[in-house]
């Protein structure tokens, strides 16, 4: 058995008592999708920012193991090392594509930025790669020179995913990637995501408050409340047989349309 790609122990970041994220233990294994669910203010997004190095923990340890088997202590790492990892080994998909895209740069430029950031200097190759990735996320490659602001919300989100996956990161963090999209667009995005995740064998940590998204995508779930993880387990296990009282309420609150 390989080692976990990301391993957190006692990870904490508290803004105020019970505000933030407290003593979280988490292992992310290669090729696995971990869902983090919970209500607003439960610390989901804080945990995601801690795991992805966007914020530093107050306490605990966080070890990332890259593809080459090299370990990085993200709590001790220099800012330069963390930013390098974020550009190469991590993907970060924001809830609002406007946070993750450069709106005044064409779709091709958005996808190519990471490649150029790690030293690609051949225009033709960068463009070919951008075009290939547009097709991967089901955007017509003919729109490579269009600005993201002329794309629909769902397309922007798919573009953001392509922009992150182009450097083949081992670990992708997503914060509510389907938030703000209508149901049919959401379904298509989830299809795309699922296909990419299994084709590429990447690990994903996904934050969502949508139990449907969690059930479709996640192999394993963490349920958070008041900054703590109150229940973990396989997705089906947690959703079909919730143990904690809060999780039972959460599962019961899923709208049943029949």
């Amino acid at each position, binding site marked *: 058995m390989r080692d976990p790609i990301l391993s957190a122990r006692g990870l904490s970041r508290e803004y105020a008592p019970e505000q933030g994220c407290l003593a979280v233990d988490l292992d992310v294994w290669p090729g696995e999708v971990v869902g983090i669910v919970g209500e607003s203010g439960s610390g989901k997004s804080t945990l995601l920012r801690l795991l992805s190095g966007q914020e530093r923990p107050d306490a605990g340890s966080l070890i990332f193991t890259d593809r080459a088997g090299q370990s990085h202590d993200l709590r001790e790492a220099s800012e330069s090392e963390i930013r390098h990892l974020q550009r190469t080994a991590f993907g970060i998909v924001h809830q609002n594509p406007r946070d993750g895209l450069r709106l005044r740069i064409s779709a091709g430029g958005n996808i*190519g930025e990471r490649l150029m950031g790690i030293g690609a200097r051949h225009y033709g190759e960068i463009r070919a790669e951008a075009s290939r990735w547009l097709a991967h996320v089901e955007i017509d490659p003919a729109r490579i*020179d269009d600005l993201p602001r002329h794309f629909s919300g769902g397309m922007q989100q798919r573009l953001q995913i392509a922009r992150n996956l182009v450097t083949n990161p081992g670990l992708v963090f997503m914060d509510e990637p389907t938030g703000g999209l209508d149901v049919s667009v959401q379904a298509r995005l989830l299809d795309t995501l699922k296909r990419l995740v299994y084709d590429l064998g990447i690990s994903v940590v996904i934050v969502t408050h949508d139990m449907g998204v969690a059930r479709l995508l996640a192999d394993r779930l963490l349920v958070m409340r008041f900054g703590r993880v109150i229940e973990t387990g396989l997705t089906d296990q947690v959703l079909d047989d919730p143990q904690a009282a809060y999780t039972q309420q959460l599962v019961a609150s899923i709208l049943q349309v029949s």
Partner: protein
Amino acid sequence: MSDTVTHYNFAYLDEQTKRMIRRGLLKAVAVPGLQIPFGGREMPLPYGWGTGGIQVTAAVIGPDDVLKVIDQGADDTTNAVSIRAFFAKTAGVSTTEVTTDATLIQTRHRIPETPLSSGQILIYQVPIPEPLRFIEPRETETRKMHALSEYGVMHVKLYEDIAQFGQIATSYAYPVMVNERYVMDPSPIPKFDNPKMHQNPALQLFGAGREKRLYAVPPYTDVISLDFEDHPFEVQSWETPCALCGSQESFLDEVVMDDAGTRLFICSDTDYCRTQQERTDA
């Protein structure tokens, strides 16, 4: 030129200010291409007219210096004439229009065609010193990007040019890599002048008055224009030679002659053009 005025300090600025600017310049020379903040002073001309350049000139000029000032290559435009007169008046230095006679050249938007030599100082007026500004409005972030050499976005700009226009359409303020470390905005000189910065024997100083930044390229430093392997850096070229001196090697300005669309291409560097004409006349 009028006589030197005595109620101002030598070269207008007080000695403490000059000391502060020189200290910044030393740091700038020590770390080629790095932007150094300085306490910019109000100068008796508006921002955008060369307040940065004029402060750098004031800080480094001495009584024995010979000053040349050019604006878009020309010695005889309002800006160039005023700044030259300013230093003739406040520092009593002699001025010239001949590139080879000058020890100090303050410039806006051009590098002289005549090659500079060791011992000369070229001072650029800079409007926006930050090459990353177009993509990143936060100063804290651009500083971090420089510190960590995160320069991928500079190529995104060039990528966008090729995607839109089929070629790198950036024609002035073309970004350069200095000494294999810092990406620098060479001020709005045409990219035609970029190769002249590379391994230049003269000291090149840059002053941005509004943004209050100094930077420098010491003599014989590598200055490489960014490009792609399949779209290499190229300078502008013209189909006709200069209409006045016949030069085929200099940067040409287009001059509209009448309302019928007649146009003329002439050297932007007036001193170079005159020298070329004298050479052919002789």
